[in-house]
């Protein structure tokens, strides 16, 4: 396969007091079927072993390798160099997150937000442990799309609101909240909607829609958040007008 040349302009950041991120240029050859991750690995193996980035599965399912490629939040393992190279490919850490080192960001905040929406089945009575709950294919379809989230954080990097309001619960956590609310086996909608119906719940969202554009798994978190707004409002009205139903 023919080889061409490209320059990767990569963010470097060393975690020392007073440190600042800078760019470093690396010239490397690439083949038509190489992805940006292959380029980063080439740099680490042959040019500069200090370059630091996360990756694991290289097939777009583990969610480790998110980065801003030419300004666009992407998975480095799914982005082909031939598609993004105009001679130079700029690779920066995901926006809206603090930088730990080079392309590695700190997203512990997301895990706290995820935990806050109770991302597990909530039931009072678990019933029979020897037989599955009945769930029809159309019930599964109701939440299947939101269940595909790989926690890659591209949506948080794309959302301008996450940048200005860091407490905003964010797209992925909302999508996963909806995934459980819509699961026919779950009974925990009330507690989740209470959490989401707050100032740093879903109401921070101004429907920019960029989260759904960048999502590599078509989870469509933007639609999920608008749906949650409706559900949260309906719950609020129900509680207001029919206090006995609480």
């Amino acid at each position, binding site marked *: 396969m023919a080889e061409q040349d490209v320059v990767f302009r990569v963010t470097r*950041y060393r975690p020392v007091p007073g*440190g600042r991120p800078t760019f470093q240029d690396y010239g490397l050859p690439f083949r038509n079927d190489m992805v940006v991750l292959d380029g980063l690995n080439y740099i680490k193996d042959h040019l500069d072993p200090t370059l630091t980035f996360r990756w694991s599965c290289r097939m777009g399912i583990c969610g480790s390798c998110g980065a801003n490629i030419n300004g666009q939040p992407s998975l480095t393992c799914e982005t082909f160099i031939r598609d993004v190279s105009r001679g130079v490919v700029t690779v920066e850490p995901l*926006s809206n997150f603090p930088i730990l080192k080079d392309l590695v960001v700190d997203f512990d905040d997301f895990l706290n937000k995820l935990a806050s929406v109770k991302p597990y089945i909530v039931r009072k009575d678990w019933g029979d442990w020897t037989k599955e709950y009945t769930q029809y294919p159309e019930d599964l379809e109701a939440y299947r799309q939101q269940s595909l989230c790989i926690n890659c954080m591209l949506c948080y990097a794309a959302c301008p609101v996450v*940048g200005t309001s860091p407490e905003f619960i964010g797209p992925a956590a909302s999508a996963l909240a909806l995934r459980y609310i819509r699961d026919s086996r779950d009974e925990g909608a009330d507690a989740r909607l209470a959490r989401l119906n707050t100032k740093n719940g879903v109401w921070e969202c101004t429907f920019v829609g960029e989260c*759904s*554009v960048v999502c590599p798994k078509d989870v*469509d978190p933007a639609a999920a958040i*608008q749906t949650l*707004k409706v559900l949260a409002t309906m719950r609020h009205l129900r509680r207001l007008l029919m206090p006995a139903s609480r």
Partner: protein
Amino acid sequence: MARHEYPWKRRPGWWLRNPRYLAFQLREAGGVVCALYGLLLLNLLMQLREGESAYVAFLTMLRTPPVLYLNGVLFGLVLWHAISWFMLIGKAQPVQLTRKPLPWKAVFGINVVLWLGVSGAVVYLTFGWI
């Protein structure tokens, strides 16, 4: 060892670097303009109350070229605001009346038709048939 994380900093002009962010900012700006239009109409009513000369003076001012050009630009923003919201309704469909979500173009189309219908009715009521 303490962690020395570098806090993320937003770069000015962020919304110029992505066509979808720019479209979003214009849409939001369009919302402000809608509010201004409302104030304009309120002012119109107030001038009407002041008397015929005040009312006519206000209308004359509205017809001057700079104000007309400005209105053209602001009308464009209001149009974009409306159209982009109609596009979004299709993409979210939080209130589902059908079994499966409708394709967003269908929802967009239905909303545009309703919008043109209502606008047409308003024009008829205000000006009669043109």
